[in-house]
């Protein structure tokens, strides 16, 4: 190699050798030369220092014969070396040994490793971060999704809420209108209205209550109302009764100061709850109606009474004319005139008497005797009385009783005159409405009672008119404009009803077939309860 250098550089090989040796002695490179036996023949100072051996120990030794990338110092430390070797040749070109130069790369490699480690760590970190980032990203996305969902949900809710609010608003409006209408109605009703809860606490009163009671402040409880009413009515007792029974009640004829009152109570029942949830109290001021009713009754009585005296005089005197003077006058019209006056006065008196009887019955002024009355006697008397009228129309009028009945068992507890009156009325009606056939009276026992039936073969009563029977001033005519002047006031059956009911019985229409006839009946309690 030296010779080559000579060759190339043209410099004295000795000079070059010296320079190289100096460099090798000075430079921070590891330089070593081995002979063919592998013994160290040269080692530069840097290598010697690094190895930790002394020069005598290392020269001629076979230490470091194979140049590993890692060599061990005497102290055991490992030094990393990057080697470069070249063969040492003599002048003949034969290999005499090996010259190696090495660079201590321990630091570099350490740094390299550290760098690599750092890089790896960084990479790991980066990966971790990436993972974390990814996780965060996922979370974020999930959160956004959630938020989106929530937002959509919220929007939907908002929309729903708006709809609900709209509907509620509409309903509320409707309810308010309804309430206003109801309130206006309730307030304008001329009856006092109180709504109370189960404890008697007042939830609502209308103005009429205040004016009826002449109350000076708001009413809070039924006790408060009771204080105003005083002893005229026990409102609280009624309240308790209605509350417990769940059934409505009515108290009439309450005299409160100068007023007549009627109190109605009705429980408020809820659909969902079986129990009452409160109570409605209606206080009706019936003073006007009472006064009107009384003056009507009084008018009825007085008018009828005052009418009777002159009518009696007309009737009596026309009778006298008939009896004593008609025969004295030759003009036949005279008799007719006198008869008409007389008959009309009789009819008029009968009507007035019916009015008065009705009025007395309605006012409860008529007392009924409770005699033992043999119904056969009454029936026979009535037949005797009306036989002529029936026969005049060619109708039969007869009594039949079931054979199993003992005649002496047909005794009722009643007022004989009143039973007679009723039977006369029923039979007279039957005769009036029958043109062929006749009238049959039948008696039959039912438990504790005796039933008397008046069976005719007359024209019957239409279904529509059946409901009008037994009502005041009602005649079974098709129209109000058709007046059967023969049949009086239309009070007959009404009076009969009042009379029979006054004696503890019942009266009614058993059946009626148009064109075939009708069956009227009345029932009276049997004597001895037989």
């Amino acid at each position, binding site marked *: 190699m030296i010779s080559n250098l000579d060759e190339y550089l043209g410099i004295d090989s000795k000079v070059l050798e010296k320079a190289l040796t100096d460099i090798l002695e000075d430079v921070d490179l590891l330089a070593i030369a081995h002979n063919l036996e592998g013994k160290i023949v040269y080692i530069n100072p840097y290598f010697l220092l690094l190895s930790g051996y002394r020069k005598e120990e290392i020269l001629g030794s076979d230490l470091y014969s194979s140049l590993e990338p890692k060599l061990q110092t005497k102290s055991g430390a490992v030094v990393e070396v990057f080697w470069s070797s070249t063969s040492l040749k003599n002048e003949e070109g034969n290999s005499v040994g090996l010259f190696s130069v090495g660079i201590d790369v321990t630091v570099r490699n350490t740094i390299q490793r550290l760098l690599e480690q750092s890089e790896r760590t960084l990479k790991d970190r980066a990966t971790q971060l990436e993972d974390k980032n990814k996780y965060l990203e996922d979370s974020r996305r999930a959160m956004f999704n959630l938020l989106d969902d929530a937002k959509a949900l919220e929007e939907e809710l908002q929309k729903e809420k708006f709809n609900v609010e709209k509907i509620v608003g509409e309903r509320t409006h409707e309810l308010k209108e309804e309430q206003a209408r109801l309130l206006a109605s309730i307030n304008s009703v001329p009856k006092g209205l109180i709504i109370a809860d189960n404890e008697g606490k007042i939830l609502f009163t209308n103005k009429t209550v205040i004016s009826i009671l002449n109350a000076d402040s708001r009413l809070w409880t039924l006790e408060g109302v009771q204080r105003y009413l005083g002893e005229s009515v026990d409102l609280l007792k009624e309240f308790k009764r209605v509350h417990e029974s769940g059934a409505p009640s009515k108290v009439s004829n309450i005299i409160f100061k100068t007023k007549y009152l009627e109190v109605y109570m009705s429980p408020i029942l809820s659909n969902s709850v079986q129990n009452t949830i409160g109570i409605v109290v209606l206080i009706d001021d019936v003073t006007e109606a009472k006064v009107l009713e009384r003056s009507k009754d009084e008018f009825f009585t007085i008018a009828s*009474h005052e009418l*009777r*005296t*002159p*009518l*009696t*005089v007309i*009737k*009596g*005197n026309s*009778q*006298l004319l008939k*009896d*004593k003077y008609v025969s004295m006058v030759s003009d036949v019209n005279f008799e007719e005139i006198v008869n008409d006056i007389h008959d009309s006065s009789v009819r008029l*008196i009968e009507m*007035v*008497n019916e009015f*008065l009887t009705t009025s*007395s019955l309605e006012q409860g*002024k*008529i*007392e009924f005797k409770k005699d033992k009355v043999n119904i056969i006697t009454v029936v026979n008397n009535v037949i005797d009385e009306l036989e002529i009228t029936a026969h005049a129309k060619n109708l039969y009028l007869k009594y039949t009783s079931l054979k199993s009945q003992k005649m002496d068992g047909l005794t009722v507890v009643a007022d004989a*005159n009143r039973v007679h009156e009723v039977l006369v009325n029923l039979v007279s009606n039957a005769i009036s409405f029958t043109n062929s056939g006749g009238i049959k009276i039948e008696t039959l026992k039912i438990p504790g009672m005796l039933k008397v039936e008046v069976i005719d073969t007359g024209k019957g009563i239409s279904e529509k008119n059946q409901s009008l029977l037994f009502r005041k001033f009602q005649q079974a005519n098709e129209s109000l404009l058709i007046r059967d002047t023969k049949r009086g006031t239309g009070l007959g059956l009404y009076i009969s009803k009042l009379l029979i009911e006054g004696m503890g019985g019942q009266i009614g229409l058993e059946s009626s077939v148009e064109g075939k006839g009708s069956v009227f009946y009345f029932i009276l309690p049997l004597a001895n309860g037989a």
Partner: protein
Amino acid sequence: MNRLLIIEDEAVVARMYEKIFNYAGFTVEIAGDGEDGLAKVKNTNPDLILLDIMMPKMDGLKVLDILKKDEFTKNIPVVVLTNLGNDAVVTEAFRLGATGYIFKSGMSNDRIVEEVKQYLAPPKDQVPQG
């Protein structure tokens, strides 16, 4: 001939009864009110008294009570004239001693005469005098 005293405040009614009973053969005296009636009963000594219930000043029941408490008049039959056939007044009249009643507007002339004849006491020989 039977003597009749009619105590009735309504003149038209009284006059009518007077005629009816005159035709039936009675002698009739009329009194326009209770006091007049009580005075006339002493003067005329009637066989029967027809007494209206509803009268001003003194009502028929009061008159009846006085008549029945008086030794001189208590045996004279009194028939009350009434408007309603079955009311409390009639019951009270019977309690006070009335012999019968006539339902004024509900009876024919003949019927009234019949009723009165029925109530007439047998021919009176033993009517206390003075």
